[in-house]
């Protein structure tokens, strides 16, 4: 709230030609809008941190026993539990954990003793190297494909185009990404020997994991884009623009694209959040050195600080993505900004 007061003009504007009222009220909603989204992000992050903490403690089995092996003596297990602070009451552990998260200390791996933060620092950029190009590609494919098919199939036209589009995207959409990854791997690595089988070894090693991540989300997002574009194409203001002989290019850029963005972006954010989970599976199929391979091992070894760390980072990525989309919607759609204040 302090930011809102400092950024406001201190007194009436010097220019008498421009009344102070509208200018101030135009700047204020923006600040309040962004502030409310930031507050929401903080609350969500707190829920996320709590959830990762509770989740790990609810999982059956003793992580210390598992890490030390079945032969470990009870005394050794007890000693280790004390070292890790696991003998303290849960609320105390929670406060300790929370303090650690805020100061950037995510604890150490039970198995390797390495700091979780360091491991995430080396692995997470690799995951981003997969996820970011995949995000961008999904949007670059889905928007034009969805919009073009909408234009080709508007008002019941283009039956064949619609049939092909619906079936192909339906198929891609229904194949889980790990199956897609396996199929791609069998065809292009084992069969055609075009790409390396696993690991991050050069530009060519990106192709298959990114493709496996992109296909499903691109298919479902382009379906949503098509439906949204069809809705806009059927509105009276698009018809009014057509009656004014507005060139088609301008019609789509000015009226159709902005008006279908709200719904497309909202759905798109959900699909892209799912893509984060997809990276975990796809990384495992292609042996990609990101956080996905880390978490699957950590879960098996009950290395709970590591699991917590990865979940925290992935969860925060999803929340951040959603906030960016929210703010973007505010920029693109003046109505959602106003609506947030009512």
């Amino acid at each position: 709230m302090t930011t809102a007061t400092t950024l406001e003009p201190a007194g009436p504007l010097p220019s008498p030609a421009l009344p102070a009222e509208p200018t101030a009220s135009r700047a204020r909603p923006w600040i309040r809008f962004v502030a409310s989204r930031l507050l929401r992000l903080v609350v969500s992050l707190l829920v996320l941190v709590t959830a990762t903490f509770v989740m790990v403690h609810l999982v059956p089995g003793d992580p210390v026993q598992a890490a030390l092996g079945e032969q470990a003596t009870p005394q050794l297990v007890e000693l280790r539990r004390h070292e890790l602070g696991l003998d303290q009451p849960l609320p105390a552990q929670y406060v300790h954990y929370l303090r650690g998260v805020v100061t950037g200390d995510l604890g150490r791996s039970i198995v390797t003793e390495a700091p979780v933060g360091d491991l995430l620092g080396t692995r997470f950029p690799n995951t981003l190297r997969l996820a970011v190009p995949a995000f961008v590609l999904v949007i670059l494919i889905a928007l034009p494909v969805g919009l073009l098919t909408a234009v080709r199939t508007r008002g019941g036209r283009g039956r064949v185009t619609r049939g092909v589009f619906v079936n192909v995207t339906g198929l891609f959409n229904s194949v889980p990404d790990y199956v897609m990854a396996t199929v791609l791997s069998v065809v292009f690595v084992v069969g055609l020997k075009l790409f390396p089988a696993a690991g991050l070894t050069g530009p060519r090693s990106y192709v298959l994991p990114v493709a496996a991540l992109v296909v499903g989300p691109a298919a479902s997002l382009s379906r949503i884009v098509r439906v949204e574009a069809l809705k806009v194409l059927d509105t009276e203001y698009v018809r009014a623009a057509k009656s004014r002989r507005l060139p088609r290019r301008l019609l789509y850029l000015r009226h159709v694209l902005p008006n279908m963005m709200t719904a497309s972006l909202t759905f798109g954010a959900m699909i892209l959040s799912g893509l984060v989970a997809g990276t975990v599976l796809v990384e495992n199929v292609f042996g990609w050195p990101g956080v996905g391979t880390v978490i699957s091992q950590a879960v098996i070894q009950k290395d709970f600080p590591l699991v917590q760390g990865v979940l925290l980072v992935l969860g925060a990525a999803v929340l951040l993505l959603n906030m960016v989309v929210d703010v973007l919607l505010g920029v693109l759609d003046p109505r959602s900004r106003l609506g947030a204040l009512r």
Partner: protein
Amino acid sequence: MTPALSVSDLTVRYGSVTAVRSVSFDLRAGSVLGLVGESGSGKSTTARAVVGLAPFTGTVRVGERDASSPRSRDAREARRRVQMVFQDSRSSLDPRFTVGQCVAEGLPAGERRDQGRRVRELLELVSLDPALVRNRPGQLSGGQRQRVAIARALAARPEVLVADEVTASLDVSVQAVVLNLLRRLRAELGLSMLFISHNLAVVRYMCDDVAVMFNGRVVEQGGVDDILARAQHPYTRALLAAVPEVGQRRLLSDAAIEASTAASPAPGPGCDYRLRCPVGPAVDPGRAICTTDDPGPGAPERVHAAVCHFASTRQGTDALAGSGELR
């Protein structure tokens, strides 16, 4: 004098449905022609065809130019001269655009440089405060929005304005404001107008001529006072009778009005209106011709070009001699 807009033999088909059948009318330069009829009678489809939003056969001429073949240069110029105002301003203005952007988009390419000034002029022309340019349609009242839509249409400097039920979505008090605005614009700018409405009181106030549509066809047309006073087609009479007006004599009995709302257009040969006609074969078995012959071909010889076998002919012989039995 060349009519501002001349439509002949206009037909619009959607798949197997024929929405408009062989409609012809002339809009005299500087006059207002009303298109009236019930919902589904084809008035809006006719308007959409005229501005190029519906595929049609037949000819549409704007002044000297043929607007029928969509790609020709003539047609493009003709289309600029015909601008449409839509029924619902809430949906016909892009919700994301500001008022200024909405109006500016209507400007012809040559006037973009002086955009700000032109937009303000246009807003003043439709009696809107130019300070509204930064507002969005959602922040305006229905009447203000409709005036923005009118300003946008006027931006292209049209000669013909097509107004499709422009007051149907407005409050009665606001309707009067918009109607008076249109009348003023017509006088100031010398606009010709194709005015579509189902409200006969509004049509009487606005129009010089009227064409009555039923089932995709113009069934009667002529001067507005003449049509209202001496309606030839029983459908027009039913429309007139449906208007509640203080002190007006009733043209039809209750039973006749009930019959007129009963059935949809009749299939097969004969008159489309025969099942609902209060003086037709459903009431009078002697009028067998209504079930066998299309009344269309003889229309040019009848008063108001009425599509009815029993309308008066121009020679003055009154086939509806027993018109007293209508009352």
